[in-house]
């Protein structure tokens, strides 16, 4: 239990947006931050990236993994472009991190803002977020096949797919599903994953491709039904979630005849031109974060794919992923002129 004085003191300190600048520590050997570290979130408050950044912040302060404090700053403007441009413009600043989602690729490709992931220094992939095809539990669809057959029978565009944002991951998946199954949905963009899930429960859309964490509460309440997961293999989590169903029981879309895989990056980057020592420091820090029970709980709740990558492997993965997004977005006609 936190003592009252400390609590209030902490509050006051945080209110001043961590104006506290601790005295420089005796330089022992490796690089260490000398100022509070900012985590830029290129998305709004309450979303997946924001949650992850705040969990990391909470873990670092609770387990005192770092002598300096962490500040989370949301810069969501222009589909996150505001946040990326800010980090790009902070060349050589070792006290700034950015947590990315797929908008690392989709925002510059879709809007044409002057930014590319190569403007950043890759630090570590923290996890990959899964996508699941959901329908309302009142509908008779038990398998992907049932559902797609009905969509095929209806006039094109009659079935509505709800998703987060426009020309971003949810819509990319929708377009890929349309291509793979030869159907046509009307895609309706909403602001956040939670809202999308509720629109499905309220029968205002026919299906969604929510992340597990966005829809799990409605699944457990028996309001929505998962049809398949857009991953190469079923999820690893075998705890019973809804009735006798576990995440691991959801079949892959590929096994159901819907050939599409998509995973979303939850990774950490730094501004360009930072020293290798600084990058190494954060890699070690994030490794420690991953060992904590709080992190494991988050991974478990959100049924994340827990791949961890750093250095050259990570950069290579990101590069491949960029090419893939370019292809996907080109096919879908989402590229801004000039890209």
């Amino acid at each position: 239990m936190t003592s009252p004085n400390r609590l209030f003191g902490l509050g006051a300190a945080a209110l001043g947006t961590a104006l506290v600048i601790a005295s420089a520590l005796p330089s022992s050997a490796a690089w260490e931050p000398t100022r509070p570290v900012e985590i830029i979130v290129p998305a709004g408050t309450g979303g997946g990236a924001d949650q992850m950044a705040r969990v990391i912040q909470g873990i670092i302060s609770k387990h005192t993994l770092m002598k300096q404090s962490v500040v989370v700053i949301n810069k969501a403007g222009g589909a996150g472009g505001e946040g990326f441009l800010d980090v790009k413009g902070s060349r050589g600043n070792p006290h700034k991190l950015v947590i990315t989602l797929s908008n690392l690729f989709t925002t510059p490709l879709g809007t044409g803002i002057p930014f590319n992931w190569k403007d950043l220094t890759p630090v570590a992939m923290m996890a990959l977020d899964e996508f699941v095809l959901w329908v309302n539990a009142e509908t008779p669809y038990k398998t992907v096949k049932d559902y797609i057959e009905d969509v095929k029978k209806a006039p094109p565009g009659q079935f509505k797919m709800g998703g987060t944002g426009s020309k971003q991951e949810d819509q990319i998946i929708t377009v890929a599903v349309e291509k793979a199954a030869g159907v046509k949905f009307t895609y309706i963009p909403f602001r956040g994953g939670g809202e999308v899930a509720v629109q499905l429960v309220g029968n205002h859309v026919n299906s969604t491709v929510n992340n597990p964490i966005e829809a799990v509460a409605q699944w457990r309440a028996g309001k929505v039904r998962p049809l398949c997961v857009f991953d190469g293999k079923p999820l690893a989590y075998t705890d019973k979630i809804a009735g006798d169903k576990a995440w691991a029981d959801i079949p892959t879309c590929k096994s159901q005849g819907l050939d599409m895989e998509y995973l979303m990056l939850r990774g950490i980057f730094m501004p360009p031109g930072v020293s290798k020592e600084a990058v190494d420091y954060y890699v070690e820090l994030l490794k420690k974060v991953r060992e904590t029970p709080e992190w494991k709980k988050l991974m478990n709740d959100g049924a994340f794919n827990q791949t961890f990558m750093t250095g050259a492997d990570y950069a290579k993965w990101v590069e491949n992923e960029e090419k893939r997004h370019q292809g996907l977005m080109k096919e879908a006609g989402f590229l801004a002129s000039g890209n």
Partner: protein
Amino acid sequence: MEEIANLFHGFAVVLQPFNILVMVVGILLGVIIGVLPGLGGANGVAILLPLTFSMSPTSAIIMLSCIYWGALFGGAITSILFNIPGEPWSVATTFDGHPMAQQGRAGEALTAAFTSSFVGALFAVVMITLVAPLVARFALQFGPAEKFSVYFLAFCSFIGMSKEPPSKTVVSMMIGFALAAVGLDQVTGQLRLTFGFTELLAGFDFLIAVIGLFGIGEILLTMEEGLSFRGKKASINPRVVFQTWAELPRYWVTSLRSCVIGCWMGITPAGATPASFMSYGIAKRVSRKGHNFGKGEIEGVVAPETAAHAAGTSALLPMLSLGVPGSPTAAVLLGGLLIWGLQPGPLLFVEQKEFVWGLIASMYLGNLVGLFVVITCVPLLAAILRIPFSIIAPVILVLCAIGAYTVNNNPFDIVMMLVFGVVGYVFKKCNYPLAPLVLAIVLGDSAEESFRQALLGSQGSLTVFWSNGLVGTIMVLGLIALFWPMLHTAWSRMRAAATAA
């Protein structure tokens, strides 16, 4: 009555000494956050969120929701004293609250504002306690078309109910819509009206516009009038609280109506800001003293504050039961819930009884504690007006600049704030109302979004806005509100004709 038993259990949880302490700290921090323009409830809660990770989820949500109540209370303070809304939902409070302060009745206005806030919150909490599951089911009926109809109603009642010429209201509103359109278009994912300036990527933030239009605009006006600060005759009277309380029961009809509007807007979920505007507009039309609104009528403070607080409180219900935040602050609280390992959704009320009822009990007590804290400060706050303008103006300017900067940590926003200040000054000089502009900046984006989402779903057919009883009724109400002045005139003429005949 299982709910009542649960609630009393909740009170037992909340009344632990540590939780009471957390509550008071939360309220105080919240009031400070509410007073500082720019540092809104959402930012404040986000900054303080990590501090709560070492507490139990129940203590943590008590602290954070108390910050939220505190911010709701605090937003009224600067609106009344300096005509600078500390929070979006207190814009409507400036209309009558500030004139009252100028007449030396700041204490009265503050007491009315705080007490009304409390009444609104209490009404909403009682509603949550009694009909939470019903409300959750009702909120599920709101698809894009239904949401648009609520926004439509808000805009229409603004035009129809306003005392300014409708043409000026419409002009002001349209400018607001244009400003709201800048930035990323949510539906197509393309940038609009940014003209290649990366500074405009994020669009015009509502808070910066408000700080500029009202805060800076007000300072410019006062300077023009020769640096005299008209509130200085404010006397410090500790009894003002009780005198005002004796007067308030007279406005129970306004209060009740505002409670209902607030709860409705909080659940649907349009939020506290439109609720306060709508409640003010309707009170102005309906009240017998309506012609006096805008000149320092206490009823004009009661209406928006009650509605804002009722909406702010009831906005937590869709968040808890559906996982959809009814306000930006609720969105941050939602993130907090997930971090503590609680999944908001239909099962939260079943699986996490202690947490949910602890939270609801803290709403009762938090608001009571909040009222006590702010009411004791009334004489002190009213005394601020005795400081000469030449000292207070630079302080306000600095606070405004800090506020504008804090919204996005962006220095460019300070420039934008100054530009809005000049715009606000010109608007006031030309007698254009600022409120419709503000309303359009706040709701323009969401209204446009739901309109287009609805049309996407119906494949372009406008009949979607009449497709079921709920959406049809709200749209008709909107049209009635829009044409209210004409309907009213027609009705009086018919009556006159009938009597003559």
